[in-house]
């Protein structure tokens, strides 16, 4: 297989891995686009939201805030809080991405949504030129889809009823369920997911502003601690065996 073909295959894999997520965000994208129009954005402004801001949760919340004439600083602060989970993504991918040229780094950075990050947890993703093609193709197809669903929402916006109470957030939840649950293959992962779920519900009920990031950090630490405890246990067992072996050999030596 020549190099060009390899690139093409891996880009294709990126596209098809992302495809179910591209489809899953149809309702969410249409909602974001139509909401902007219904809340009095011009078509151009409504287009810039997915094209430049490119973040579903931020778009949705901020459109409502802007329609209610919320002070700018509150809007920006809210957007920052919602976006703060991305700092974790950047940190997690730093090792793989920091060595790339500015052009590729900035592209991955711009495309780094929850969905792309979920696909990039694979150890090999982004590392090396070929894996980069995978990430850029997956992320790029998600960007174009997001833009397209928003445009449909923008065009249909004035004809659609208010979609905010139709339960479209279920599509987001079920996408993440489909991505996370099958990957719980060991105890640390299970602990992480359980702690994240419990903390996020508790913090959300307490209406903590940083609920999401805080629960994630606690859950990550729980997962990390579980790995350490398991490793220590394994080490102890191993050293027990080693001790037995040396004792036995000593006994053999004396007899």
């Amino acid at each position: 297989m020549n190099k060009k073909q390899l690139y093409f295959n891996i880009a294709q894999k990126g596209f098809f891995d992302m495809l179910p997520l591209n489809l899953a965000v149809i309702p969410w994208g249409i909602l974001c686009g139509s909401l902007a129009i219904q809340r009095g954005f011009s078509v151009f402004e409504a287009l810039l939201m997915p094209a430049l801001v490119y973040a579903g949760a931020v778009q949705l919340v901020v459109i409502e805030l802007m329609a209610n004439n919320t002070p700018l600083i509150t809007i920006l602060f809210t957007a920052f809080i919602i976006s703060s989970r991305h700092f974790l993504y950047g940190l997690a991918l730093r090792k793989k991405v920091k060595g790339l040229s500015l052009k590729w780094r900035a592209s991955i950075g711009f495309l780094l949504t929850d969905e792309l990050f979920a696909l990039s947890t694979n150890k090999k993703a982004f590392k090396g030129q070929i894996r980069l093609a995978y990430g850029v193709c997956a992320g790029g197809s998600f960007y174009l889809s997001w833009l397209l669903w928003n445009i449909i929402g923008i065009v249909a916006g004035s004809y659609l009823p208010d979609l905010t109470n139709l339960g479209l957030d279920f599509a987001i939840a079920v996408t993440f369920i489909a991505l996370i649950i099958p990957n719980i293959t060991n105890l640390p992962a299970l602990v992480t997911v359980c702690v994240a779920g419990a903390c996020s519900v508790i913090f959300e009920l307490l209406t903590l502003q940083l609920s999401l990031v805080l629960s994630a950090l606690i859950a990550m630490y729980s997962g990390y601690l579980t790995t350490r405890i398991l490793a220590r246990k394994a080490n102890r067992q191993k050293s027990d065996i080693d001790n037995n072996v040396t004792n036995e050999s000593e006994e053999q030596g004396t007899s």
Partner: protein
Amino acid sequence: MTLMTIFLLAIITFFSRYCFLHPSLPIKIGAKLSNFLSFSAPAVLTAIWVPIIFIREDRLAINLNNPYLIAATIAVLVSIKTKSVYLTLAISGGAFLLLRLYL
């Protein structure tokens, strides 16, 4: 004014995503931090989806009248059984629609 706000928002979202990818930032990621960060995807994504399912109208909604909870339970079972994103989306999405109509 709206345009200005949109540009500032774009800067915020891009900054949050790009910030730690920048090479000249003086951060060293050792084995421990790296292990800690390996849990970021399940941790963050779970912290996003669980409250959508369990909290309805600002209250804990653990009951059979909550279509989110029933459909999500179906989603979890299907995803364990099939490991297919498509099947999970289709089956639990269909269940959710039916539940919304009949509950």
